């Protein structure tokens, strides 16, 4: 490997220069991003290309760093909840849950049963919305323009449903320490019941339009193979791990809430390639519908917020707590350390996207540029969550 001889000729910022130092002579260094159609936000990937082949790729993070963990140190527990909706706009409910769950665990607060069901319903609906967003955007990456419109048509219905109890359409701040902000009213439940069969009828159309399409199959089959040990080394979770055949889902591995009472499957795929991750997400949407259906039937009457729920000035008792939930992208964890003061001493947020992205550098090596984009898309990245 010959190195760049004339270092002073290197252009670009620190990252590019640093990356180029070890580049081979004659290779092309290309910055994908921070503004690039395939990175869905402000992710930046530096790639070293030999023709169309990716020799090396390196994701550069931090373009959307918003200090959420620092903000947790200057707010009380209840005041920090609105932040959680902003961490991951795709699956805001999961993040809501992770933090609220950690605070409840630290404070030893019981949640009314109806609230648990409401949490599961909203979280799973949000998961479908998140997968639909991924599905549309991923196919956009692969050059199909129309699916995202159909996906958003369906997603819009979920957003309408979730708007009723939450009042917002994207960055929900719905969970409260000790329950949820508002009960699902009759209109909302009616809409959910209407939505389930309707969305089931849409899934075959998705299959016809793209899942079975030979061009798509050729595009995503056998590319971006992630071995199980790679997943374990990088801490990949969610559909990325399940697409490689690792049967790990927090809802089953470390059950929380009412999930043990529900009957649903954890879809996995042994394909290990982008197709496996695609299949897992498509199957997961069906499972979400099953979960929501059961929850609607099993949901008891009652309060949705525990009596004497913590006020904003509530202090988390001294101690620490960790709570993890299964988000649309993987394991969302919130670790709360309190010294008994007004604000939480330290909050650590474990973002699944961060771990999932970190294996990209290894997996993308030696692929074609178009494949690298397809692999990047198949990891389902939400940049604000990665940077936090």
């Amino acid at each position: 490997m010959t190195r760049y001889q004339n270092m002073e000729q290197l252009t670009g910022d620190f990252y590019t220069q640093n990356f180029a130092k070890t580049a081979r002579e004659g290779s092309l260094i290309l910055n994908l991003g921070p503004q690039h159609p395939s990175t869905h936000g402000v992710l930046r990937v530096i790639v070293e290309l030999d023709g169309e082949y990716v020799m090396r790729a390196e994701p550069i993070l931090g373009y959307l760093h918003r200090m959420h963990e620092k903000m947790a140190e200057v707010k009380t527990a209840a005041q920090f909840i609105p932040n959680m909706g902003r961490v991951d706009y795709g699956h805001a409910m999961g993040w809501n849950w992770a933090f609220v769950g950690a605070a409840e665990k630290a404070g030893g607060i019981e949640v009314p049963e109806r609230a648990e069901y409401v949490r599961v319903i909203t979280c799973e609906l949000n998961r479908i919305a998140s997968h639909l967003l991924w599905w549309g955007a991923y196919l956009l990456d692969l050059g199909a323009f129309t699916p995202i419109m159909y996906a958003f048509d369906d997603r819009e219905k979920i957003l309408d449903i979730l708007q009723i109890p939450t009042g917002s359409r994207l960055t929900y701040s719905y969970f409260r320490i000790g329950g949820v902000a508002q009960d699902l009213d009759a209109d909302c439940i009616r809409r959910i019941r209407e939505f389930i069969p309707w969305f089931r009828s849409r899934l075959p159309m998705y299959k016809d339009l793209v899942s079975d399409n030979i061009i798509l199959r050729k595009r995503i089959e056998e590319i971006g193979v992630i071995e199980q040990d790679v997943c374990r080394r990088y801490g990949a979770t969610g559909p990325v791990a399940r697409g490689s055949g690792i049967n790990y889902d927090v809802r089953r591995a470390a059950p929380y809430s009412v999930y043990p009472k529900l009957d649903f499957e954890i879809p996995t795929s042994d394909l290990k390639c982008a197709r496996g991750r695609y299949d897992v997400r498509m199957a997961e949407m069906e499972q979400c519908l099953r979960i929501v259906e059961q929850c609607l039937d099993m949901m008891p009457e009652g309060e949705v917020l525990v009596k004497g729920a913590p006020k904003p000035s509530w202090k988390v008792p001294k101690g620490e707590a960790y709570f993890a939930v299964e988000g649309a992208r993987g394991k969302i964890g919130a670790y709360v350390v309190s010294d008994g003061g007004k604000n939480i001493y330290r909050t650590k947020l474990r973002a699944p996207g961060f771990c999932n992205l970190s294996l990209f550098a290894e997996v993308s090596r030696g692929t074609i540029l178009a494949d690298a984009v397809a692999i990047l898309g198949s990891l389902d990245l939400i940049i604000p969550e990665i940077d936090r």
Partner: protein
Amino acid sequence: MNAIPAELLRILIGLVAVAASVGLIGLVMVWVERKVAGHIQRRPGPFEVGPSGVLQPLCDALKLVGKQLFMPSGADPILFWLAPVLAFLPVLLLFLPLPVGDGLQALNINLGLLLILAFSGLAVLSVLLGGWASNNKYGLLGAARAVAQSVAYEIPLLLSVLAVAFVAGSLDLAEVVKGQGTWPWNWNVMTQPLAFLIYFVSALGETNRAPFDLPEAESELTAGFHTEYSGMGFGLFFLAEYANMVVVCSVATALFLGGWHGPVLPGPVWFVLKVSALMLLMVFARWTYPRVRFDQLLVINWKWLLPLAVANLLLTAFFVKLAQFA
């Protein structure tokens, strides 16, 4: 003595008509494409300017004309500005030998097909120059893709066209059309279905239309070879793409779908109808399929289209010879 000025006059009128119609077709096609895409995606498409938004492309064209022409630093000024012009000018020539109706042809030469194929090959040069001269890495990659793609897809395209030329015994488009009849079973597509299929797929590749729009694959290369073009520089590339679409569809109509032949309605109407149908199919394909990968694109060409085209050509030649003996 009289014949030469008449021919000259005809070419002159033809050129003017072609230049006007290319502009018009560009505008109409932009509107159709956006409208069809809109309806496929369950949205209305343009609907604000004029009835159903028909004037929208005109507004867009005006906007493009009004935009500042911008050239990146380090670009080669001559090649950079030559490229869009080179993309657009040969297209005008391509329209000349197209037989719209019986005798309705701007330039009646017996090598019309050859002229079209020769000049359509120039399009790749403009893409290469545009991508190369912009001093942009995405542009360069797009240009490299465009060259490999165009060179590859030209071969099966030629071979499939040649098969029809064998049957018709002429390279004059008007002659080929005359050899076909009124009804669909009299058309060449019946005797040469494989050639038609190969032609159509190659044409998609040749015009850089989705699912073969790799030179401008926006999820990988932002906009590929025309990343750095603004205003009418981009506009000319855009116009050339649509004009090229019309040309390949017209040639397909003339070669395979009986050209101006058709019952009841006058010839030119049938010709336009058939071309429109093919164009609609191209538009539908764009808004339905994902993009193929670059190596797959070449695999489709070298491993499938090319052998099939050669086999088809051999078979055709065999039967043509057999028919001569019989």
